[in-house]
């Protein structure tokens, strides 16, 4: 798994590549939490273009970050989600709490 983080217009953007399963869940959680701690951003955009697989362990990390962000009044959105990952999001009900966009720019504009 590869993760890069950047700050745009005060929003934390996390770009993830790889397969989000239990093997990478701890690192994924840690990296996002560290970035949130250090930049103090209120809103989070997850760019999942490079994510080819996700299961409930990966979803759990995303849900955990959603809880953290929403407790502080912020929003989490996801962009560039591949179809098989989108299907898992849909089945899990994550779509109901998190918006999906085609690009980072679109997600930024809607915040």
């Amino acid at each position, binding site marked *: 798994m590869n993760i890069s983080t950047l700050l745009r217009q005060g929003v934390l953007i996390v770009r993830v590549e790889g*397969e989000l*399963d*239990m*093997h990478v869940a701890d690192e994924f*959680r840690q990296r996002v939490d560290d970035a949130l701690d250090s930049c103090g951003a209120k809103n989070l955009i997850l760019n999942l273009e490079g994510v080819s*697989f996700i*299961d*409930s*362990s990966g*979803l*759990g*990390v995303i*849900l*955990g970050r959603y809880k953290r962000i929403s407790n502080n009044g912020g929003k989490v959105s996801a962009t560039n989600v591949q179809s*098989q990952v989108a*299907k*898992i999001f849909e*089945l*899990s009900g994550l779509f109901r709490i998190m918006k999906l966009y085609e690009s980072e720019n679109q997600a930024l504009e809607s915040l």
Partner: protein
Amino acid sequence: MAIKNHVKMSIQSLSENVGIARVTAAAFAAQLDLTLNEIEEIKVAVSEAISNSVIHGYGNQDGVIEFIMNLYDDKIEYIISDYGRGIDDITLARQPSYSSDPERMGLGFVFMESFMDELDIRSEPNKGTTVKMAKKIQSNTAH
């Protein structure tokens, strides 16, 4: 019904091996004319079952997971067994949002159930858990 193909693996209970198991499951399924979508579903279901054994069965401690793949005329079957802690209440464990960990969504069994056509869970506390799941296939699709 006669088994047309069979693979049995012994997997050490390590998170690294969850990916190896699901890729192997996909390779075993590739001998059929399944859609990419169906293969993705198998990968998720197998990933959940093996993750459950690593996380819940063995509590991230050392252990052995047995992974059996069987191909029949009418279905492809995956059997995942561990000799760990077992599940106290299977009916409860199969409910959405059941999880012993607040950061997990308790969706493992929900995904297995949604993505496979058959799901059978046998478990005994302190003896282990066996998950048997299968996807039905149309006849004559095996190469």
